[in-house]
């Protein structure tokens, strides 16, 4: 027989586990990666552009004198650098991402493919309108879906994120009050609200009047009603709320707000729990932003870009900001100026340049058409079912502050199960990283001590949920057994151990700077 005489062993040697310090500093597939500024050389580029001789520059004597200081790298070097960086990130594509209130659901690649069609991605916002009728038709179709799903008559499309949508909604309310000649100053915001709500109210020139929560995780409806008077511009509620619960008295509160002449702003961050089943318009909502990057999956992209269209009630529709989209019988038309307004329109102003986040619009409509109204309803139900399944499967070992009732699309726990163990919510979250999971949202909402907010979304299979539950139960038991070392030092198996946030904040280093070379000895 022919012999393999290369000496290559075919089985692993029996070696004790060692913590090997490597020569490179890298560990297998885990590569350390310097900053782009620490790489590269002068005179190298990753883009070939012909040199142009400028014969008569028309720069008004303002030519740049000093070099910029950018490093030069070839294409393969740049690709490798960013591929290596990408591998230091967790992602929904790689694992369950139970970040409550953030809705990390599957991001279909069809969304991206459609947004990159040249007819959408390569058109200019100020092209003649007859050359972008397909784009305007897409926006119009998305508006139809959003208004139909919410049961609201109008929608402002330009806001670029949820918080931008909140601002748009409150400015619409301000304009409606101005039109009535009223100067109301207060917005009622529950203590459980997301931080953007009070920040937006302040930005829109209102004062924030905080409404407490009840012991069962709802807004204190009696306290809220008691605060309603002729100075209240609006109530600003998240529904389902940040504790993952539907506000049962929502319609009553909306009616009470309307009765005193105020409006109801609903933070639609959690619309994904009820889309296709419940129409906010039926609940008395006057304005609500919809996070297309959450409910309609456009994706999150490491923190943006998002999109936050705002649906509006009949009472507010007239005050929607520019631009407006209308059909003039012959074709779709963007109204960008006050001089050409349709009858009755009284826009409060403009939220941003151009017409909104077209790239996200394409992604959202692609998602909506794929699901259909039946699929959207099923997605909401699956999201709610999955959260309840987690709640039911964990509540005997992880403390749930609001008892046995069902939750909506996210399950809230607190840190009372950790009492006496010496393990904190933060430690527990970091231990989840070692188990291969992105942690849940922690320390939010503020109304619960050591909050852990878990949102599985509809994108997980039962097997995936069961595995997650198994890990969570195991960790909870380890924590209760006060096995502190696996928590306090966690994470051990991540690109970085715990980072010193105090140092970062005390001596902020917000950019790279070339190190001063030591002076040569004289």
């Amino acid at each position, binding site marked *: 027989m022919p012999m393999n005489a290369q000496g290559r062993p075919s089985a692993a040697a029996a070696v004790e586990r060692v913590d090997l310090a490597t020569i490179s500093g890298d560990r297998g597939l885990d590569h350390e990666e310097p900053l782009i500024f620490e790489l590269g050389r002068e005179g190298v580029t990753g883009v070939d552009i012909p040199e142009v001789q400028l014969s008569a520059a028309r720069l008004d004597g303002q030519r740049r004198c000093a070099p*910029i200081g950018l490093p030069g790298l070839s294409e393969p070097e740049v690709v490798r650098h960013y591929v290596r960086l990408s591998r230091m990130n967790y992602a929904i594509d790689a694992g369950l991402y139970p970040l409550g209130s953030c809705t990390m659901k599957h991001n279909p690649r069809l969304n991206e493919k459609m947004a990159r069609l040249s007819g959408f991605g390569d058109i200019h916002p100020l092209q003649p309108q007859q050359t972008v009728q397909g784009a305007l038709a897409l926006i119009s179709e998305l508006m139809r879906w959003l208004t139909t799903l919410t049961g609201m008559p109008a929608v402002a499309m330009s806001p670029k994120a949820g918080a931008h949508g909140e601002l748009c909604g409150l400015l619409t309310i301000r304009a409606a009050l101005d039109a009535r000649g009223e100067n109301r100053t207060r917005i009622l915001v529950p203590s459980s609200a997301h931080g953007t709500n009070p920040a937006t109210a302040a930005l829109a020139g209102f004062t924030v009047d905080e409404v407490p929560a009840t012991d069962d995780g709802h807004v204190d409806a009696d306290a809220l009603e008691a605060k309603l008077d002729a100075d209240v511009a609006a109530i600003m509620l998240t529904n389902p709320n940040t504790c993952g619960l539907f506000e049962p008295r929502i319609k009553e509160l909306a009616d009470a707000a309307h009765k005193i002449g105020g409006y109801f702003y609903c933070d639609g961050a959690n619309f994904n729990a009820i889309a296709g089943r419940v129409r906010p318009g039926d609940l008395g909502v006057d304005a609500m932003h919809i996070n297309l990057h959450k409910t309609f999956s456009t994706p999150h992209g490491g923190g943006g870009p998002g999109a936050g269209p705002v649906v509006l009630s009949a009472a507010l529709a007239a005050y929607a900001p520019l631009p407006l989209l209308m059909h003039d019988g012959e074709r779709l038309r963007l109204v960008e100026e006050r001089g050409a307004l349709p009858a009755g329109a009284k826009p409060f102003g403009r939220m941003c340049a151009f017409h909104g986040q077209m790239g996200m619009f394409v992604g959202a409509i692609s998602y909506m058409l794929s699901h259909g109204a039946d699929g959207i309803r099923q997605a909401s139900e699956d999201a709610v079912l999955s959260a309840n399944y987690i709640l039911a499967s964990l509540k005997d070992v992880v403390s749930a502050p609001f008892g046995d009732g069902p939750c909506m699309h996210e399950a809230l726990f607190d840190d009372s199960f950790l009492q006496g163990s010496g393990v904190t919510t933060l430690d527990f979250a970091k231990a989840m990283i070692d188990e291969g999971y992105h942690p849940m949202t922690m320390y939010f909402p503020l109304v619960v001590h050591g909050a852990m907010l878990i949102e599985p979304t509809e*994108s997980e299979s039962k097997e995936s949920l069961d595995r997650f539950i198994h890990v969570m139960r195991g960790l909870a038991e380890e924590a209760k057994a006060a096995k502190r070392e696996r928590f306090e030092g966690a994470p051990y198996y991540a690109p970085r151990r715990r980072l010193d946030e105090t140092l970062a904040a005390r001596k902020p280093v917000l950019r790279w700077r070339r190190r001063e070379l030591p002076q040569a000895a004289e």
Partner: protein
Amino acid sequence: MRYLPLTPDDRASMLAKTGARDIDALFRDVPKSAVVARSAFDLPDTQGELAVERTLSCMASRNMAGGSVPFFCGAGAYKHHVPAAVDHLIQRSEFLTSYTPYQPEIAQGTLQYLFEFQTQVALLTGMEVANASLYDGSTATAEAVLMAQRLTRRPKAILSGGLHPHYAETVETLAALSGGVVRAPTAPGKAEDIASLIDRQTACVVVQSPDAFGLIRDLKPIAEAAHAKGALLIAVVTEVVSLGLIEPPGHQGADIVAAEGQSIGVGLNFGGPYVGLFATREKFIRQMPGRLSGETVDANGKRGFVLTLSTREQHIRREKATSNICTNSGLCCLAFTIHLSLLGEEGFVRLARANHGRACALADRLSRMKDVELVTPSFFNEFTLRLPKPAASVVDALADRHILAGVPAARLWPGDRDVRDLLIVAATETVSDEDCDVFVKALAEVL
């Protein structure tokens, strides 16, 4: 439905675990009157990928894509070539499908590119520090005005007449609540006398360069006039490629720079998503809006990055936050960072020269035409022409001939009769000699 993994059996056994009788029982807090049936929605049912692609491709085909015709539109959004590697890299799952880097140990990829982005923006603008981006140039400008109002404790913002009108309207929407906004008159091709408007109530002066007509502005005298009265200069840049050739605002006395970064790495996208650049002086960082990535070390002493100075932000400061902003423009930042890294110093400067050279050549040819006048004596890659008839009708006529000839100034200043005949023309590196020939010939025919 292909995106939903649960089977009917899964649902049944999960429901059993929850103890609920049926799915409706989980929605028990929803008022019965508010629950609607499927039939309440006049919307289609689930469709496969092929069907969705057909529908959307059909809509897309009804638009005149920039790459399919000679293309000269600018006015705040510019067509540049984006290297293939950019889109490939930003679509990697780990970038595309991650969230804001709240858990830094497993988000170093995002945090490091944000740190690189902040450094690049600071270098380009000639400023000390930059944030991890805002939504776009217009909202960055509005945030800059609010920041100036906080820093100076003064109410008034003076906006140059050369500021992009959409930007001015965005500023008015926001800053009107916290103070007054004064818009200087529009003077195409000229620098208005803005210094005389500054008084002791002035928080800031907002000047765009190159301005909305393309004119390059000298910021130094305006910075001096503003500083003499205790006001700040906010410099706005809508075409960041210009910074490869023009003195950056930071070297001209700007206190805050708000810019649109779309030109680097981000497509036209019909106006969004884009990426707002925001840079300022180090001493102002605590009043800065938006996310910041900062350098630190981990428990093993290794360098790493975290979101820092969060106490400025809404999730901690709530109604006292510097801004209500919660996201940045993450993926567009990444596209910007990768494209600029590919360009490097040499590529970026060459790109700027290619743009300026192209625009100079086109401006020379067009302004030699009968009855066509070049209004902007200086410019980078965009200039304004005065035509012998309303520019909008010329643009429409050229669109019929499959040429996107630029933006009529009347689209931006609709009520202003003085700009009716002005056409704003941009020529980037994507414009070929042949495109210019076609444009010049067709323009001669429609004039």
